[in-house]
């Protein structure tokens, strides 16, 4: 590059620098129009669709009795009733007026007979 070319490049550099300093600034109106365009083109934020969970029979049964705590309490109470009925049938029969029964007798059948 000779001296003449260098001067030409320097002159052009000065002109380009001046032009860059004079670059137009986006007006507020332009930015508002651009943002309005963006809002119009933009889809609303996607909401994930969650498939309903498949529930098994055991889970459904557990829900009916109020979950594992409720089901456990129910099983414990039934078990206790059976034990009491087997070990001390007199206690149970004391609630059945006029009945004297042994282990294995038809408790409910006799009860109804006694009522008749």
């Amino acid at each position: 590059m000779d001296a003449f070319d260098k001067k030409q490049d320097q002159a052009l550099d000065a002109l380009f620098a001046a032009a860059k300093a004079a670059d137009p600034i986006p007006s507020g109106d332009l930015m508002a129009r651009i943002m309005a365009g963006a809002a119009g083109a933009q889809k609303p934020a996607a909401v994930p669709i969650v498939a309903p969970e498949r529930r098994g029979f055991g889970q459904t049964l557990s829900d009916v009795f109020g979950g594992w705590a409720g089901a456990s309490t129910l099983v414990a109470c039934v078990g206790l009733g059976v034990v009491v009925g087997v070990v001390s049938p007199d206690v149970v029969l004391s609630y059945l007026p006029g009945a004297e029964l042994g282990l294995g007798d038809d408790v409910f059948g006799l009860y109804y007979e006694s009522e008749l």
Partner: protein
Amino acid sequence: MPFDSQSEISDDALMVLFANGDGQAATSLAYRHTPRVLALAYRMLSDQAEAEDVAQDALMRLWKIAPDWRQGEAKVSTWLYRVTSNLCTDRLRKHSGKRRPAEIDSVPETADETPSVEARLIGRDRATALQTALQTLPERQRQAVSLRFLQELSNPEVAEVMGISVDAVESLLSRGKRGLLAVLADDKMELGLEF
């Protein structure tokens, strides 16, 4: 920085966020790219109102392509420059024969913070002279010169935007610079230039 509050996020990531409905991503992309898109459009069209219309149109196309944007394939800035160039070319062809050179009154208000009044006046005169000279160049030369020397893209980036080879870009730039100097030769004393 008020113009880009998500400056640490890449353009590609912002495009994904925008496509997913993030309004802030649109703001960041708009404030990041609108100034350079507007500047290129103004260099090409020499008309502030038309340049603003082109900038709005270019950004609108960016919003529309966001859901299909392929990360890593193209830079958002390069894509926008290409769209802007094409939009300007369309307008220039529609208005062919009706163009007029830039006038001092048509040079937009800017954020020029030159310290002295004299320096500001010289800078304004030079900017106007260059803008006028640019309009005398053939469209492709004007586009190449604007992208390379005013938007500060590399030669390969200019080639990508214009869809031509780097050799072709260098040829356009060489002829463009010679053309500018020829047009500005008569005014070099008034512009404080020596060549």
